């Protein structure tokens, strides 16, 4: 399966976790209502409640953000593949930094949300996984360094 597909799949799984199990007071449910998609979301939640087991807290709270982080790194690699490792690192480190600061901003109350160390741990693991997948896949393909020094 192509890396881009894996990234999109990870993003969708993260989104599904939110839509099925998280409370309806989240902003995304208001967006779904505004877009006229609430009936689809309700059907999804009913299915989840009826047929799927109740997941643990880390699965609900930390995994979606970790999956989105993974998705971001892999998608950015597909954009910058064979072009420039510098720009790939620029964008991915930017993504990681913004995500970490948004989590840390919750401690001081600057940003809405509840600080959870599990979220930070999840993001760090996802970042490592993202880099491992992108770099590992390119090594396996036997690609040689191009003139920009990428792979």
């Amino acid at each position: 399966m192509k890396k881009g597909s894996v990234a999109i799949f990870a993003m969708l799984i993260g989104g599904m976790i939110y839509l099925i199990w998280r409370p309806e007071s989240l902003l995304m449910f208001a967006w779904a209502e505004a877009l006229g998609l609430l009936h689809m979301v309700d059907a999804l939640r009913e299915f989840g409640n009826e047929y799927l087991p109740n997941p643990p807290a880390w699965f609900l709270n930390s995994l979606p953000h970790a999956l989105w982080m993974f998705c971001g790194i892999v998608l950015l690699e597909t954009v910058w593949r064979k072009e420039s490792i510098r720009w790939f690192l620029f964008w991915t480190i930017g993504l990681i930094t913004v995500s970490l600061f948004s989590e840390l901003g919750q401690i001081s109350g600057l940003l809405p949300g509840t600080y959870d160390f599990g979220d930070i741990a999840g993001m760090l693991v996802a970042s490592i996984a993202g880099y491992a997948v992108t770099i590992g896949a390119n090594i396996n393909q036997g690609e040689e360094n191009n003139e920009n020094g990428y792979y």
Partner: protein
Amino acid sequence: MGTIRKHILSAGILSALMLLAIGSVDTDEDTKRIQGQAPDYRTTADALFSEFKENEVAADAKYKGKIVVVSGVIQDIGKDVMDQAYIVLGGGGFLDGVQCTFTESQNASVGSLTKGESVSVKGEISGKMGNVLITKCSLQ
């Protein structure tokens, strides 16, 4: 694909992920936080309104931003200009009660209330504008 297009695409990916993160913000978090806190004051709607009517400056200093549990008889039930559900406790005339505003998640609870019913409500006092205003309310 040109480098500029790749930067635009990268910014788009980041924006999409930021949008997902913003969408995961709980709009009811303040209400939940207040529900979990011990109230600073417990009072009746009429007593609270009297304090604000007597000296609004002193009452603001005492109550503004504080968490209270207010009890009283429901005088009015409705939705404000922001489409948020509210009830007015106490009073009986015009703008002489305590208006408690609820977030959307409380709509089902507010919808089951009737005028004349006695209730207790927990929330955060934001001041007086006609009625004394309490926001992020939940029924006790």
